[in-house]
């Protein structure tokens, strides 16, 4: 009886013929979704490129206001989280539940660390009066275009942080499901597709970090 219930739980959804078709559809769906994410961020990267070209001195000035160490630590944190996520997917494929839980938990934890550090950075920009509209109190050179720089900084890192927050929520959901023994070597599609999402969020940060913190 118990065996039948397990089998039912892993029956494909009615529109699919088998679990392989279902997994391939889910993976392709996530890849297409990631393409839309690239286009969403792409709009902002375009604005960044145009404004950097129009207002080069202000963008150089802007990068001097960045907390380089916090940004570098955060980059390391996210790369580490990509590693733990990849490990989690690998454990799921092999049906190793305990390893899966451990790596999922470390992934979520690293995500939270990143968000905490990012919040600290935001707070220090706020203390310096570098948040457009909050009000903007910076009175140094290039004040006008520097607002554009900081607006883009908050828009792009903010959109990234929103995505990472969603990612932490999704990984937490995976932890709950894994604790309920929902994943096996035969069925672990959610772990794989959320893993793809997590890696994209990391890759986007790998572009954001040099654009705002490093080049000047």
């Amino acid at each position, binding site marked *: 009886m118990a065996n039948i219930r397990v089998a039912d739980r892993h029956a494909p959804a009615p*529109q699919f013929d088998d679990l392989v078709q279902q997994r391939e559809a889910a993976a*392709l*769906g996530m890849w*297409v979704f990631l393409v839309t994410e690239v286009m969403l961020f792409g*709009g902002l990267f375009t604005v960044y490129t145009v404004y950097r070209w129009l207002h080069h001195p202000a963008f150089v000035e802007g990068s001097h206001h960045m907390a380089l160490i916090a940004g570098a630590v955060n980059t390391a944190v996210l790369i580490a989280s990509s590693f733990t996520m990849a490990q989690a997917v690998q454990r799921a494929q092999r049906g190793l539940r305990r390893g899966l839980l451990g790596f999922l938990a470390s992934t979520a934890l690293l995500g939270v660390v990143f968000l905490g550090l990012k919040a600290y950075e935001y707070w220090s920009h706020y203390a310096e009066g570098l948040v457009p509209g909050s009000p903007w109190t910076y009175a140094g050179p290039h004040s006008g275009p520097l607002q554009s720089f900081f607006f883009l900084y908050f828009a792009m890192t903010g959109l990234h942080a929103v995505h990472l927050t969603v990612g932490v929520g999704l990984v937490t959901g995976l932890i709950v499901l894994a604790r309920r023994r929902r994943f096996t070597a035969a069925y672990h599609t959610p772990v794989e597709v959320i893993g793809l999402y997590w890696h994209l969020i990391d890759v986007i940060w790998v572009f954001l970090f040099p654009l705002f913190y490093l080049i000047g």
Partner: protein
Amino acid sequence: MIVATVALERPHAETYLSAGTTARSWLLTTDHKRIGILYMVSITLMFLVGGVAATFMRITLLSPGGGVVAMETYNKLFTIHGVIMVWFFLIPSIPSVLGNFVLPMMLGARDVAFPRLNLASWYIFLAGSLFLLWTVVTGGVDTGWTFYTPYSTQYATSRVVSTTLGVFIVGFSSILTGLNFIVTTHRMRAPGLTWFRLPLFVWSLYATSLILVLATPVLGITLILVTIERWLGIGIFDPALGGDPLLFQHLFWFYSHPAVYIMILPGMGVISELIPTFSRKRLFGYTFVAGASIAIAVLGFLVWGHHMFTAGMSTHAALVFSMLSYLVAIPSAIKVFNWTATLYRGAVSFETPMLYAIGFIGLFTTGGMTGLFLASLAVDVHVTDTYFVIAHFHYIMVGGMVTAYMGGLHYWWPKISGRMYPENLGRLAAMTIFLGFNLTFFPQYILGYLGMPRRYAGYPPEFQVLNVLSTAGASILAVGYALPLAYLLWSLRYGERAGANPWGGTTLEWTTSSPPPEHNFEHTPIVTHGPYDYVRGPQGD
């Protein structure tokens, strides 16, 4: 006539319509066919709102001095008309209604790949629509459907934020539909249904979906920037702070030009089904027509600059955009020539869907040719922002897309409802729409060429005759659209019962009963040959 169209009448068999009749069974359905109908009802309501706005515009333009509505109101009328017709009618029209209904059946699938996501996309559409309707009842918006900055961000005093948010939200509905169609086409095809055995409607929906997922996110982020700038007063497009209003136009048209192809490619797909069916002949040049859909989708991403020839652009950029815009004419013309060649020596019959298809070819060609005038730099400077542009894109979007939508709706109506519509009334409506449409919009070509600018509530007295003709045409067009609304509803109850394959179609949706069972087929069809093969008959068993 070799195809035996045996109607497998099993009146007591369970259909997708009888599988549940409560409101709950509709509102929580994950059946792609029901979701298509939910979309049909919603976009028809939105079409009525957009149509009422157009009616008031045409009434205002009866006399040179306007006077029926205040000028500010006129600005709101054309804005609401544009926003609703583009995002809340045309973009979801064929993909979300007919595509949702037909695509999985054409693939021999039981449903789309992600049925719950499909339902979610309808609810997202509904949420976006509510934002728009809220805008309308609380005072409207007057920026034009293009939301150009800095007017939209700094000067407009109307409901910009609720409108841009509504369009932003409805964008996710488009993205999810596109995503669903792409995955469904890749992963849900019946055994034997290779890519080059796919009906051309599937190819065109696939090309449309590529545009939906690639372009819509860019519009989304752009509208969010406009919303933030207006809401929080942060000047991302404000020149005083070093912002660039032209950058907004680039981002907007990077989406909105490909969106023009979202609003025509599915129509071309419908026509590619209608022409072979009613000519009893294999479509001429199948591979070229399929490839042309993809070519249009790709080229469509490279021509957005032609909306900005007079907005400030380097001569070299303008030349490149002009050249690329000419290139789009090639795949479009390939389609027109192939449809026409299919008619040649075919056993052509003129049922209502075919009348729409023939009308489409003429209207689309006219709209497409005038697009070439606009792509040429010198002529464009002369007719920019005139009624010539209005006439051009209405020939594509109304003459093309709405005509194809009507044709497709009649063609698949027996499959959707299990009933036939009244054929003579159908033909009458198709001809009324064709006449009314041309009377409405042909005078606008002349008006525009003579220099009448768009978006004004008044005009010099010498333009009155043509404007009155246009308004008269619009009245005929309104009758033409009201007729199908009435007789299609009537046919739901009183129409003659339709067999499984009333037109002798060859694609898989005609191999199942009308209306189909909940999971479309009794057993998964095995496909042995391509579509439009009137010697071997339907694609599946």
